């Protein structure tokens, strides 16, 4: 094990998979000469060359669309959308094409594409540049949606996404790149579609993913001081959604708090809450609580933006609220 940042973990996954399989290549805005807007592909252009690290025009629809085409004929593109906010300019390619072509043509070809996109708020980028619209993409069958919360999971899941034959939207969080965590020296894979217990506890089941996993771990520390032990289940994959570990934990705690960074209404946790009630109805002792973003376009003003985003303290209060 070595301790590296999320940025390094993702960068390593890309580098190792490109070394491993020459069909893997990267295309997107500023992935090459610039080295990636978030420095994730720094050094790739010099090492792999412009053939496999392709700077593109600012044209998200053809970035994802050309990657879809290349994937249809057997390459393994990693298409980078600088941020998930720009995914909306490529929406048709992601939800109508990547997600559907395999099925719609009777399965005669596959779409082994990975679409990387950076999401999340909290950096004063204002309404159009600060979104966490993960639930929107998770709604479409045919697409897989992955969003890791630790360097270990990021590396292992990205490798699985690249080696797999299904289209995967891989959502990163800009404020997590500096986060550090243990990662094995040797090659490893983490399975897509498997939720994971990231902290054990017996009082409350806390379900979350991505950046909110870190907030939840912090909240858990706080709560532990008051003797409250929360069990944290990290979804890691939003579609397919693995409720197994969530239900298992909930059957022991009978209480749940669901935490996401995106807007509350029609968000990820609405689905998780509904499935909990559907699948563990008899184990519920208290109403499940959601912690999420207030329903406003995020403002530039720092204080207001922070006020609109879920905070560690909100999680702490929600947990106390279900006890």
């Amino acid at each position: 094990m070595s301790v590296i940042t999320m940025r390094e973990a993702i960068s390593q996954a890309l580098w190792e998979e490109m070394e491993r399989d020459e069909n893997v290549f990267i295309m997107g805005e500023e992935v090459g000469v610039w080295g990636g807007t978030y420095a994730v592909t720094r050094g790739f252009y010099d090492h792999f060359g412009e053939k496999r690290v392709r700077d593109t025009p600012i044209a998200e629809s053809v970035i994802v669309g050309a990657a879809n085409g290349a994937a249809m004929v057997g390459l393994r593109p990693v298409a980078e959308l600088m941020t998930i906010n720009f995914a909306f300019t490529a929406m048709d390619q992601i939800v109508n094409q990547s997600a559907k072509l395999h099925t719609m043509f009777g399965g005669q070809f596959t779409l082994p594409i990975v679409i990387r996109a950076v999401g999340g708020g909290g950096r004063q980028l204002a309404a159009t540049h600060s979104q966490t619209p993960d639930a929107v993409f998770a709604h479409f069958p045919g697409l897989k949606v992955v969003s890791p919360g630790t360097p270990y999971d990021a590396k292992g899941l990205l490798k699985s996404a690249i080696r797999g034959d299904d289209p995967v939207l891989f959502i990163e969080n800009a404020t997590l790149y500096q986060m550090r965590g243990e990662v094995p020296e040797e090659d490893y894979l983490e399975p897509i579609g498997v939720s994971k217990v990231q902290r054990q506890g017996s009082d409350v089941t806390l379900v979350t993913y991505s950046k909110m996993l870190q907030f939840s771990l912090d909240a858990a520390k706080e709560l532990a001081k008051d003797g409250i032990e929360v069990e944290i289940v990290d979804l890691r994959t939003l579609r397919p959604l693995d409720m197994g570990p969530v239900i298992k934990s909930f059957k022991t705690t009978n209480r749940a708090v669901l935490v996401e960074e995106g807007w509350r209404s029609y968000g990820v946790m609405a689905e998780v809450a509904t499935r909990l009630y559907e699948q563990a109805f008899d184990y519920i002792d208290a109403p499940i609580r959601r912690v999420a973003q207030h329903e406003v376009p995020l403002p530039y003003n720092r204080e207001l933006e922070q006020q609109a985003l879920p905070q560690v303290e909100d999680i702490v209060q929600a947990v106390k609220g279900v006890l």
Partner: protein
Amino acid sequence: MNKKQKIALFHEMVLIRRIEEHAMQLYQEGKIGGFLHLYIGQEAVGSGVLAARKPQDRVLTAYRDHGIAIASGIEAKTVMAELLGKKTGTSKGFGGSMHMADVEKNYWGGHAIVGSHLPFAAGMAMADRYRGEDNVTLCFFGDGATNIGYFHEALNLAGVWELPVVWICENNQYGMGTAVARASAVEEIHKKAEAYNTAHSRVDGMDVSKVYEAAQEAIQHAREKGPYFLEAVTYRFEGHSMGDPERYRTKAEVGEWEEHDPIGIFRKQLIEEKVADEDALNEQEKQVEGIVEQAIRYAEESPDPTWDDLVETVYVDEYGDVI
């Protein structure tokens, strides 16, 4: 083309025509559902271009795809089976009229979101260059499709990366009911190619011989130098799809174009050039009737796809039984 090839080409155009005439019939009978866009009147474009390609060259088009499916070498019975939604169809009955493809024939569909397949073409051509193969990708689309963002992003990328694509615009004068001049700032559509540093020309799309020659040059150019834009001026004799009120054009206009029926024109040429006499060509037409009737029988006797067929085709990789 030698005599044999020319007669085969005539046979193919007649086959496309008859399949669609029967399809119209089957649609009225309710055996075909969804949208049905007929190629009647435009056969010379698909047949002329495909006659000039090598099997290694890839083909894509929009939803008006039966003719190009046949010209790509897909059997009439397989096309018919897809129209009837059968498991033996090109797409297992999942795609229908608008979504036919056959990877074996290097025919990649059949795409119903206007312009969405142009990025695929760029990506496939990029993949071929990536692998050092000298394949060319032939991408058909309509006049109306040249006004959507996809067109711009795909042609620009092909231009910047000098990709081996032949862009074939089938200018049939209307995008649904909107005449070219009402939707496009430039009426000579092939001139749009200049904005992408792409060579271009215009050809009479009702004369299969002229289309064949133009396509040969275009394909060679693409294989050796980079993208080429070919505009084929043509006309659809039927409505946009079934149930088109056709308020946007007069019977007289349609009548004038029908006098330039591509099959009639080619028939005349073959007789003038003494490639074949009336009887020989009538014999071809009779053969086609038989093929189409067999195709319909085959399609009607074919099994429907099952629910399991569908569910198994949503994802490729295993991920447990979670949704």
